[in-house]
């Protein structure tokens, strides 16, 4: 499957992760999924969800209720899940990330038998390198 992502949808997970440097953060990706010869996902929006206690379910449930209505209004569907781990040297999705991604996959498949979803994991190490590169050109005392 091919995944295309809009600039805003790309930046939001990064900003979310940067806002909570000591926590894991996650959210959903909204967009459109088309199936011609192979699946193609167009991610248009990223919706930040949680930055604490990702394994507790009530707020995820509430979020999905609100998302249903939002998606209908905007003509988008849930096409993915994003996740950023709390420590710098964790490039792989954590067990919680996998569980939530699976859950989203099941939810999407319920309404669309051919639906595809993607998972976006923020590479903390790359993000750190970027921040360092930017910092090198300006001091903190400004």
């Amino acid at each position, binding site marked *: 499957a091919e995944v295309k992502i809009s600039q805003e949808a790309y930046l939001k997970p990064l900003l979310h992760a940067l806002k909570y440097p000591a926590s894991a953060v996650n959210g959903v990706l909204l967009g459109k999924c088309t199936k011609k010869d192979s699946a193609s996902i167009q991610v248009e929006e990223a919706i930040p969800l949680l930055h604490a*206690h*990702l*394994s*507790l*379910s*009530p*707020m995820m*449930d*509430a979020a*999905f*209720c609100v998302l249903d209505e939002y998606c209908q209004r905007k003509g988008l569907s849930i096409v993915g899940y994003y996740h950023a*781990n*709390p*420590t*710098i*040297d*964790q490039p792989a999705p954590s*067990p*919680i990330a996998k*569980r939530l991604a699976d859950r989203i996959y099941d939810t999407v498949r319920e309404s669309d038998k051919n639906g595809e979803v993607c998972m976006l994991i923020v590479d903390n*190490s790359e993000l*750190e*390198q970027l921040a360092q590169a930017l910092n090198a050109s300006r001091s*903190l*005392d400004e």
Partner: protein
Amino acid sequence: MADQNLVPSDLVELEAAFRKSPTDLSIQQKILSLLRLHRIRRPDLVMKIGPYLLKKGRGRLGNSVYDVREQILIAALDLHRLGDAQQELKWLQENFPKSLRVKGLEAMIHEARAVPHHTSNTDTAAQNAENSYRKALELYAEILNEDPCNGFAMKRKVCMLRSKGTQEGTNEAVRALNEYLVLFPTDVEAWREMADLYLELQQVELARFALEEVVMLSPINYASHLKLAEALYTLGDFSTARRYYSQSLELNPDHNARAAYGLVLCATALQPGRGGG
């Protein structure tokens, strides 16, 4: 000084005043006092103000110069400015050579070095990180040798194990935290951390136990009831969750959307013939 009367909400005003007159030493001193008093984590502010205040305001600081140096050290670690942290450590070590508190700060600097940082040679980097990690643990062990009830060292060990980011690291952190809680069973923050650790391990049942302790130790804090309610909801115990959500809303009816959402979700789940959510 009236600094003891400062509350966290004063920070907004003080920060605005600081921006207007960035060289006003009295404002600077107030800000740092407030951050120390309420343990607010603003390394950006500390690093902007601290070094300047040390240079120009040594006289007005008096004995609090030691606290300010410690504050700068920790803020520097937060921003990974290890050189600045090392500088403050050197000064503190010269003035308090036998201090366990200073030794703890030295260990924290090693902790910060233990984060593998991208260098061209990743093997050396990994080895250095590993050495620093071990050195930090060594220092904490030394502290505990001299003072077996040193809560700081015990808690830092928990943090180090947790920040490994692996299942086994977090499991070890749980064990270390249990040792701490045997000595300090009424430390509500420690129970909160315990709940966090269990949730990271996706062991919600055990997290619930820890959250019950939190509620017992801080019964008028709306957030404690709220967290316990969320754990109960996750475990499928909607009726008990509803009670804790209600209690949370009683304690904080105005700025508690989370509990309101929770209450609606529980009520929906408890309706006969309807599923959850």
